[in-house]
């Protein structure tokens, strides 16, 4: 009885913490993309800007994720927050991306997600649930992030 209660409580807390990710619709290089259209996929949502150094360092990693897991159902969307589109073009020319780039120059989308630092990463599972949020990009975070992604991909 005690154990069941504990597990139930933890599950509720877990649900409350994770919760439903905000539904969104953003402009990307491939046109408008909505969260509804992505249900059933695992979304790796990243908020970045051209002037942010760790963001630049995370691009090769995100390219790797895209190449490795796209077939398994991972969608990488990197939402750019630059106000000047020219800077983004310049950045992408030097650091190309195989994944989808989204645009949020006014920062409204970032605000709805409660972005606290740059870069900020969110993992949304196949049911539209927010299962992970992370601020910053460090070498040692890669392992943990990869584990979380694989878990989300393997669940149904």
């Amino acid at each position: 009885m005690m154990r069941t209660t504990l597990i139930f409580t933890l599950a509720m807390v877990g649900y409350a913490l994770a919760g439903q990710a905000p539904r969104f619709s953003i402009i990307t290089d491939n046109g408008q993309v909505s969260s509804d259209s992505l249900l059933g996929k695992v979304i790796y949502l990243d908020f970045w800007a051209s002037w942010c150094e760790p963001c630049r360092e995370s691009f090769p990693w995100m390219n790797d994720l895209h190449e490795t897991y796209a077939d398994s159902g991972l969608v990488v969307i990197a939402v750019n927050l630059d106000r000047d589109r020219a800077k983004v073009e310049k950045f992408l020319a030097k650091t190309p991306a195989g994944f989808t780039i989204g645009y949020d120059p006014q920062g409204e989308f970032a605000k709805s997600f409660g972005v606290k630092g740059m870069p900020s990463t969110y993992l949304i599972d196949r049911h539209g649930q927010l299962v992970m949020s992370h601020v910053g990009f460090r070498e040692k975070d890669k392992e943990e992030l990869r584990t979380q992604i694989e878990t989300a991909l393997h669940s149904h």
Partner: protein
Amino acid sequence: MQLNSSLRGRLRSATCALLAVTAGTTTAANFHSKWTVEGASLLYAESKRTTVFEPLLVIKRDFGEGQTLEGKFVFDAMTGASPTGAAATNRVQTFTTPSGQRHQTSSGEVPTRSFQDQRGSVDLSWLKPLNRRFRTELGGHVSAETDYRSTGLTATLAADFNQKLTTISLGGGMNSDRIDPVGGVPEGLTRVDPRSTVEKTLSKHIADGMLGVTQILTPRWLAQVNYSYADENGYLTEPYKMISLIDSITGETRTGDYLYEKRPDHRVRQSVYFSSAYHLASDVFHVSYRNYWDDWGVRSHTVDLKYDLEVSDKVYLEPHWRGYYQRGADFYVYSLPRGALTPEFATSDYRFGDLKTLTVGCKIGVKTAELQEFSARIEYMQQSGNEYPEEAIGVQRNYSMFPPLDILILQVGYAIGLP
């Protein structure tokens, strides 16, 4: 006296949300490369006085995630003539240097002594983030010249608040200096006589601390306030400087009428410093102001203005203006009247009198490659004080007691980032 190394530079933390912090001595340029090497050479030339040539090299290693290690190596070669503190008078004055040489100063001229020296220094600085909020910086310093050695350690802790909009810094430093004056140590406020000096090694200890707050005010505006406190103990006098004894009516100095100067063996220095950077359309305007005071009676205001003008995405110009206004030490004297009571402390070192230093200059920076920058700078400085003070007596009124000093500064530098 202490040179203060600045705590500045930006921390490239993995979260990247914080910019322009106080703890982070990236003296070298901020390329995002594993190694950064920066070299520079400075030429400092006073009109008819001292000339200094100062090359330096900075090597920085970035370990990633905000951890850096930096080494700075500086060499100074100094030569020229520096005022002894003795006043101009209406006849030729003869002096004997500590090494036994005699030299003369013409009538009406401020006596100076020629010198030549070299100085080398090494500074190490290690910056390490402790966690997402805290980071620390540790520094060490060693320097040596013919008669002076200095070693020091510093430690600073910085913490970010309000999503890194606010940073609070707390720093402390300890310094220990060893002084071995060539020609021995004189007894302060006794008659100048090279035979009266004693071969002795002296020491000076300094403890200092700083509390600073840096705040991002708007997306374009960053500001900082610092409060600093320093406590100096030990031999704080200049062994080579002297004060002229003058006739209380005629103002003349007789042959050999000089006293060695004497300063207290303790000094407490404090300052409040404001700094601001404001980003206009494409240029940046920097303003800083320092209010300084100490228990020797020295008070000063320092205003510094810099304007970073973006000429193109590869070239910038930086005009600069600095104004320094000093009210001198309580025990500063132009000279001492013979026969009057000798004060407890006295100095005629013009740097401790009422003076003002004005600097105008311009710097140019050119981005020669992706991770390379060339820079050059020229500055003109003028230091002036009370040329005809009311304390001047008799013949002294005929001469300038503080001839304005013109100084030219030239500097070139090159920085390279290596992956």
